């Protein structure tokens, strides 16, 4: 395998930026945002250089490795801190640094009024560095470091405005739920070490075929748990909606484009495990299918523009997970959808940020309306993203989402029909709620509060949106032209031959477009033909109520995990107080009691001391008297 010495700069540059910005403190307030953007941009440049190098090599010699240092060496357990850049990682590297840099630029303007902009950029750089470490690590343990790093950065950024208790709680919620997933990842690493004896990707891949299926299934399930935590998939999805508490660029970068897709990366990277463990793979598909419907349904009921987009993200990642769960035929499409989604969803989040920027940070879509005239650029870029997510040809989503739907249909048997139907239904619902977002925000009558003065955002904000919009339009075509991405990634995955086609691609596309048309039509009838109340109506069906409550996800978590946990804790606290504290305090009280008895002796009077000496002497004589008796 080729080695390189320059991989480390990808991570080191943004990490250096974060370090400087955090250590320099207020001194860096004037230039901190520029430094942060430069660091991210130069990391992107390094990524482009690496891509050009990689393109110059033959298909099988493309992966590059760099050993940094010997990290752990305990007995037979040896882990080197090493980086691996292959065809899969380079996609992520370019997505992370590219979209990341655009969002850095956007944030310069978006956060310009914030007192702590420098700290924000420090955290963004920290995130970039951690995310790059995640995708560049050559072993699960290295990946784990990045995995925790992005968790930390996400926590810091969601709670960036932690002066508001609700935001601080949201960041804590995200952190805790991510921990549940992280436990899965650490279990997977432990199982890998226990059964295979190594934690590097190459090592496990090498030994995968003579490792027991049970161990691989256990590892797969644990990796899936990790993926559900980080990617907000069922059943660990509840944190993503609340994570919208963070500044909008954060939502765009971390909670739409990059970090939440880490689960997809993990499953794709672990293809050798899932391919050998069909049960785990089936679970992946099921999780993806449930989540894509779950997120879509939540999206239909949200009035908060960011939460609607977050629900959409959840749903779209459900597509990716489903695609990744379909095995070798699906990996490439999952990654393709991930990349296109990275463009259009980041673009839409930035558009939402732009709208909020013009509307005094109002997030309720019922208070928007008719913004098309006031924010033409935002409307156009958002609209392009909208067309992309719907899957209208020739926009990006058409290529990636349709491929996943098609692959789902081709999975074979009942499973194929079920999965295909679910993905089709999801596409329809997606069309409905995204159209709803568009209509509520940009068309119809103005339903603003009086103090709102909508205006277009400055250049630094609309430029990244425009670039991402170009990506939303063209990325799908570019990536699928001549199966470019599939061929690019193919050396990484094992092939098992072609499935027979259940439906012709053209039929699938027609069905999908039909579903989209139905969704758009319903939304149009419901929100464009009728007046939209600026306050959410109360007399709605029970289903709407449930959807507004995020399909009871929080209540479920509270009832099933939180309450019993609290009760257990209370029992433990009582036990602690009564038994352990009782014993400890008992010892203390014993010492105190006996010493307060003895304290009486320490009166401070010389004569009482003398009397004690005298008594002691008398007792000594008494002892002698007894002995010589």
């Amino acid at each position, binding site marked *: 395998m080729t080695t390189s010495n320059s991989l480390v700069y990808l991570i080191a540059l943004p990490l250096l930026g974060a370090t400087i910005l955090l250590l320099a403190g207020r001194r860096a307030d004037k230039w901190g945002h520029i430094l942060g953007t430069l660091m991210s941009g130069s990391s992107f440049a390094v990524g482009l250089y690496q891509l050009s190098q990689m393109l110059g090599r033959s298909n099988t010699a493309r992966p590059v490795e760099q050993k940094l240092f010997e990290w752990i060496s305990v007995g037979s357990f040896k882990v080197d801190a090493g980086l691996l850049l292959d065809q899969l990682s380079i996609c992520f590297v370019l997505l992370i640094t590219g979209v990341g840099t655009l969002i850095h630029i956007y944030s310069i303007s978006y956060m310009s009024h914030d007192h702590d902009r420098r700290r924000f950029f420090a955290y963004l750089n920290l995130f970039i560095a951690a995310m790059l470490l995640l995708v560049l690590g050559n072993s699960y343990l290295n990946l784990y470091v990045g995995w925790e790093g992005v968790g930390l950065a996400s926590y810091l950024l969601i709670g960036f405005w932690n002066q508001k208790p609700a935001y601080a709680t949201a960041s804590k919620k995200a952190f805790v739920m991510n921990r549940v997933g992280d436990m899965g990842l650490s279990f997977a690493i432990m199982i890998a070490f226990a059964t295979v004896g190594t934690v590097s990707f190459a090592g496990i891949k090498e030994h995968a075929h003579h490792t027991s299926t049970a161990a691989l299934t256990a590892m797969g399930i644990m990796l899936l748990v990790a993926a559900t935590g980080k990617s907000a998939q069922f059943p660990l999805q509840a944190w993503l909606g609340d994570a919208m508490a963070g500044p909008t660029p954060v939502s765009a970068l971390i909670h739409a484009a990059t970090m939440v897709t880490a689960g997809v990366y993990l499953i794709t990277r672990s293809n050798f495990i899932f391919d050998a463990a069909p049960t785990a793979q089936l679970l992946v598909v099921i999780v993806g299918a449930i989540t894509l419907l779950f997120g879509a349904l939540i999206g239909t009921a949200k009035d908060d523009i960011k939460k609607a987009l977050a629900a959409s993200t959840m749903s779209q990642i459900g597509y990716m997970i489903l695609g990744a769960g379909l095995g070798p035929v699906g990996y490439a499409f999952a990654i393709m959808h991930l990349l296109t989604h990275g463009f259009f969803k980041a673009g839409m989040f930035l558009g939402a940020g732009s709208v909020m920027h013009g509307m005094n940070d109002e997030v309720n879509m019922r208070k928007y309306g008719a913004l098309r005239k006031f924010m033409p650029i935002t409307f156009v870029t958002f609209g392009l993203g909208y067309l992309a997510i719907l899957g209208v040809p020739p926009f990006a989503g058409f290529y990636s989402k349709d491929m996943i739907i098609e692959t789902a249909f081709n999975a074979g048997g009942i499973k194929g029909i079920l999965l295909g139907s679910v993905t089709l239904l999801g596409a329809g619902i997606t069309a409905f709620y995204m159209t709803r977002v568009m209509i509520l925000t940009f068309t119809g009558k103005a339903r603003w509060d009086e103090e709102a003065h909508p205006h277009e955002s400055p250049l630094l904000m609309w430029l990244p949106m425009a670039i991402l919009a170009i990506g939303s339009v063209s990325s799908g075509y570019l990536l699928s032209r001549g199966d470019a991405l599939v061929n690019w990634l193919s050396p990484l995955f094992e092939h098992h031959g072609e499935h027979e086609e259940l439906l012709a691609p053209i039929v699938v596309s027609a069905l999908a477009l039909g579903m989209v048309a139905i969704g758009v039509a319903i939304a149009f009838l419901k929100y464009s033909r009728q007046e939209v109340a600026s306050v959410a109506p109360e007399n709605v069906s029970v289903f709407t109520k449930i959807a507004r409550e995020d399909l009871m996800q929080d209540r479920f978590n509270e009832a099933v995990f939180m309450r019993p946990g609290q009760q257990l804790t209370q029992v433990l606290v009582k036990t602690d107080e009564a038994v352990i504290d009782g014993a400890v305090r008992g010892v203390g009280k014993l010492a105190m009691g006996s010493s307060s008895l003895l304290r009486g002796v320490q009166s401070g009077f010389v004569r009482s001391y003398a009397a004690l000496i005298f008594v002691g002497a008398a007792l000594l004589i008494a002892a002698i*008297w007894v002995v010589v008796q």
Partner: protein
Amino acid sequence: MVDLAIAVGQTQTPEAVLFWVLAPLTVAAALAMLLVKKAVHSAILMASVMINLAIFYIAQDALFLGIVQIVVYTGAVMMLFLFILMLVGVDSSDSLTETIPGLRPIAITAAVGFGGLMVSLIGRATLGRSAIGLEAANSNGNVKGIAQLLFSTYVWPFEVVSALLITAALGAMVLAHHQSLQLRPTQRQLSTQRFRGASLANAAGLPAPGVFARHNAVDVPALLPDGTPAANSINATLQARGDMLTSGTFELGKVDTSKGEEK
């Protein structure tokens, strides 16, 4: 008891008489020392106990120690005690009521126990041989015998003890030394202050007590020309104690002349 019995030879009876006369006196003096209120009386009783002990030493062929006991202890140490007593206040008498509850019963119980057990122990002790007496050891004279031991076997402890004595003397000096916080003003400074000070009122000296007053005792203030008393004519100590009379006490009309002239 039989084993400890010593044939002290021909002096047996006189010594027994001496002992039985002086021992009760000694114990009585020691007990009285505890019971009297005035520390001076205690000191006198202590001195008597020490003299009695000196006599016992001499009676037991310890001539040198007996003399030292009288000279050093009764003479020097007890004088030191009396000296300090004078310094601290010779006529202050202690109250003998106990202030620490339960201390006296404890002390008496411990005393009875200690004394009783010790007496019982001595009573039961056996030596295993008859006592010797000091005739042989003192054959060259008691002082020579002690000197021989002191300057041969015990020369090192002797030197150490002498060092201790010097250290103690130095220590006492350091402890008793009163540190003055500022330099004592010289005669010259006092004189300057007197004539170049804030006022010349006292340049000729403070008024003497009793001047122009009806009485010339030190505690009667002088009278100023306008008839008011001059407070600074009385010693500051007397003023502080409040031992100041007003000259009005001695106005003619109020003096009781029926008992004749006051001297």
